[in-house]
């Protein structure tokens, strides 16, 4: 019975993972698949493998930050928070509003804090909010730099168009693998972060040397959910991304994917964080950020690098709108869901 309850409670996180795999993962290989540079099967396999590696190997940093924001200590509470965020994302997406799972989960955690009567650490909340604002800006900066490097390379090397196509294809695969790794490392916190303190898994020691921690097992499960989302739902989204939403050439798609992956990487890499802090340098906070907003930032960066033409300013407004609206709605839904779960279903949501 306890196992069944655990499965039901974890299902909210697994749904988040599936949704992430279906939508966000499509941003990585959308253009490559849409323009037939890479087959969907190849894209799906690479994405799945690297998302899982990213989640298991590099996912703890951003999850710890979410833990600092609100340490959810009951399985039912974690379920309510995760389900509220998932519901917010689904509802807002259906209405065509800009939405990010990162922003939804943060709002839902704050909702749990309010419901439980715990003080939200404002310094952590401010850090997270600043990172959201900085995400598209940093993506734009990275995109501009990469764009200039790629442009210089193309204009100053006499590479045959056929070879260039081959290199572009390799570039898209490598950038895509990196993008998938970064997505897994950064966004696994949105999928499984709230379940860390209530993880049903115990550490497994393999051959007395390698320890596969309970948290890693949780992240592996989340990674698999993302992979299932990639295989079952992302094909249509990839074709749409490739053909209609952002009409990018394969080379500009490479720039966008690489810039986005770098942004997600710097906001999730503990190694980079430790390196910078140990050298007394300002470090990037380890925060789950919106991949879609990083993509928009990167595309705008390329627009700026090209001379500032064709920049859709309404996108900036929409992003700003999402920063406030998404966590707010998610917070309210979370409070309502926790109330229902505690008072109607008689579940303990706060320890």
């Amino acid at each position, binding site marked *: 019975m306890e196992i069944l309850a655990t499965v039901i409670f974890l299902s909210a996180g697994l749904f988040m993972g599936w949704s992430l795999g279906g939508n966000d993962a499509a941003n990585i290989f959308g253009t490559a698949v849409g*323009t*037939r*540079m890479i087959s969907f099967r190849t894209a799906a396999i690479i994405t799945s493998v690297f998302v899982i590696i990213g989640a298991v190997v590099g996912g703890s940093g951003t999850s710890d930050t979410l833990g600092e924001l609100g340490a959810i200590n009951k399985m039912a509470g974690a379920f309510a928070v995760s389900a509220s965020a998932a519901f917010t994302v689904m509802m807002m997406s259906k209405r065509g509003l800009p939405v990010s799972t990162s922003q939804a989960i943060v709002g839902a955690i704050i909702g749990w804090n309010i419901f439980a009567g715990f003080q939200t650490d404002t310094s952590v909340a401010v850090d997270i909010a600043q990172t959201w604002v900085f995400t598209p800006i940093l993506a734009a900066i990275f995109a501009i730099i990469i*764009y200039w490097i*790629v*442009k210089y390379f*193309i*204009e100053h090397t*006499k*590479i*045959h*168009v*056929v*070879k260039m*196509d*081959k290199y572009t294809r390799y570039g898209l695969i490598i950038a895509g693998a990196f993008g998938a790794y970064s997505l897994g490392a950064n966004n696994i916190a949105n999928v499984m972060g709230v379940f860390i303190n209530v993880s049903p898994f115990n550490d497994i020691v393999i051959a007395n040397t390698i320890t596969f921690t309970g948290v890693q097992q949780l992240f592996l499960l989340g990674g698999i959910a993302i992979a299932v989302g990639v295989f079952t739902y992302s094909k249509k989204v990839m074709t749409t991304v490739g053909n209609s939403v952002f009409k990018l*050439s*394969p*080379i*500009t798609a490479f*720039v966008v994917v690489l810039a986005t992956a770098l942004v997600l990487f710097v906001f999730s890499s503990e190694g980079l964080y430790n390196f910078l802090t140990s050298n007394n340098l300002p470090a990037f906070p380890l925060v789950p950020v919106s991949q879609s907003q990083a993509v928009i930032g990167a595309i705008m960066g390329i627009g700026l690098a090209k001379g500032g033409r064709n920049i859709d300013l309404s996108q900036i407004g929409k992003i700003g709108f999402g920063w406030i609206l998404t966590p707010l709605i998610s917070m309210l839904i979370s409070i309502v869901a926790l109330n229902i779960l505690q008072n109607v279903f008689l579940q303990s949501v706060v320890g």
Partner: protein
Amino acid sequence: MRIFKDHNKELEMEMDLYLNALQKGSNTLLEGVKAYLRGETEKFNERIKLITEQEKEADEHLVNIKYVLFRYNLVPDLSADILELMDAMDDINDIAKETLLDFQVIKPKIVPSLIDDFGHITKKSNKAVEALIKGVRIYLTEFSTVEDYITKTNLFESDVDTLQHNLKIKIFDEELECTLGEKLVLNKFADKIAGLSDIAEMVASKLSVFRFKRSI
């Protein structure tokens, strides 16, 4: 071990050989017309034989290019542009061969006062094709400077237009001792030779679009 064959290299090579065949075809037309104008029948007949082979050779390379592109799906994003470009250029050798064969069959009477004009117009048409083929080669490797060759092609085509107009004035001059039928035949040959530069111009405008599409 056929599966280890580098099909990218194969495609590059086929495109290179195809462009060589087109350039040779245009050169053969120039030499053939010159031979005809000088009355060098043996040389002219050799050129007829040569251009027939060159046209066949170009067709074979075009088929190979299409085969490699379709079979191995090497450049999905660019394949349509490459095919369109290569297909459009195929007309160069077709026109060159057709023109020389027409010279052989119709045997137009070129009066001495028009020999230089026919020579010049053929030379300029050949120059337009040469500039175009250089432009296409540049497009395939170093596309940022392709516009220079597009401009050159257009300039040569414009020169051909002027020469063609002047030639027509001379052909239909009342003092030219030719029958109206002969004049109409000469006019047709002037159009045919100038047609080569028109194709070069048409392909150059396509190239301009493809160059724009390749810039990032």
